[in-house]
């Protein structure tokens, strides 16, 4: 059987998968948007930018931390809103720092409100943890869309070439 001189190439673009975590108090945050509506909005944003997503919510902070520390490796990007009761960035809270420091996966922290508006929070004592950790706050629920648009760029994958 004659063989072709060069094998045919088939190109696959691997869809990046993002984990969207939502923490305590978000359901009652007074934004006028329900968690279901937020999940749908995130799904729409993901469809627009070509991402797959898994959307989770918990009112148990320990569960949120366990997801952050334990499940991140299975995803290409993480978006986390620790919840309105958090009141400050994850990067300045020891329990969160333990979960996210050293993470190889890009992470973007989203807060509906500007958590740094309070002058007392301005010097937040956060640590030099490095990493690809972004912050979006004060955009309301639009912050998720902005974060997902950014995550699509951060996780942009090369085309995987396979021989057939």
């Amino acid at each position, binding site marked *: 059987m004659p063989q072709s001189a060069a094998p045919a190439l088939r190109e696959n673009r691997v869809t990046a998968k993002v984990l969207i975590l939502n923490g305590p108090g978000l359901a009652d945050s007074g934004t006028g948007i329900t968690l279901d509506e937020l999940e749908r909005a995130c799904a729409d944003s993901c469809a627009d930018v070509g991402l797959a997503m898994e959307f989770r919510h918990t009112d148990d902070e320990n569960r949120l931390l366990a997801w952050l520390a334990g499940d991140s490796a299975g995803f290409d990007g993480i978006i986390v809103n620790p919840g309105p009761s958090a009141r400050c*960035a994850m*990067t*300045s809270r020891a329990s969160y720092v333990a979960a996210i420091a050293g993470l190889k996966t890009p992470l*973007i922290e989203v807060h509906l409100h*500007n958590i*740094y*508006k*309070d*002058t007392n929070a*301005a*010097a*937040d*004592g*956060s*640590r*030099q*943890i*490095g*990493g*690809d*950790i*972004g*912050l*979006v*706050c*004060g*955009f*309301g629920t*639009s912050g998720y*869309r*902005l974060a997902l*648009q*950014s995550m699509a*760029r*951060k996780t942009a994958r090369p085309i995987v070439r396979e021989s057939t």
Partner: protein
Amino acid sequence: MRKTTTVHVINGPNLNLLGTREPGIYGSDTLDEIATRCSTAGERLGLHVTFLQSNHEGQIVDWIQQATGRADVIIINAAALTHTSIAIHDALRNFDGLKIELHISNPHVREWFRHVSYVSTAVDAVVAGLGPDGYELVIGSIHELMASA
């Protein structure tokens, strides 16, 4: 006739070196390339974008003052002045339009001296650590942000 939304993007010290300075932290895009992308994004959305950079605190204060009556939105990357300038803080407080603080890297995961922001307490929203793409992504969010303000 619908008034065009005007956005002033104000950049602080050392951002003129973008593309050559610490690309591992700040990326390889130059500020001119970012400015072009912002203008293009703005045109697509019916926004008029003015892109400014200075290494001098007083010039930045002047630009913020001049934005009153001329701009609807200020996007400010005050760079290192973020962590030192109460003058910029005060000037921002005096501007009535929408104010967004932007950083290419996330100062809160870097050295301790970057963890204070005098800008954050005078703005409506903060974006950091989205890389150079952050500029055009924020511009893309302005209509939604103004609608909910």
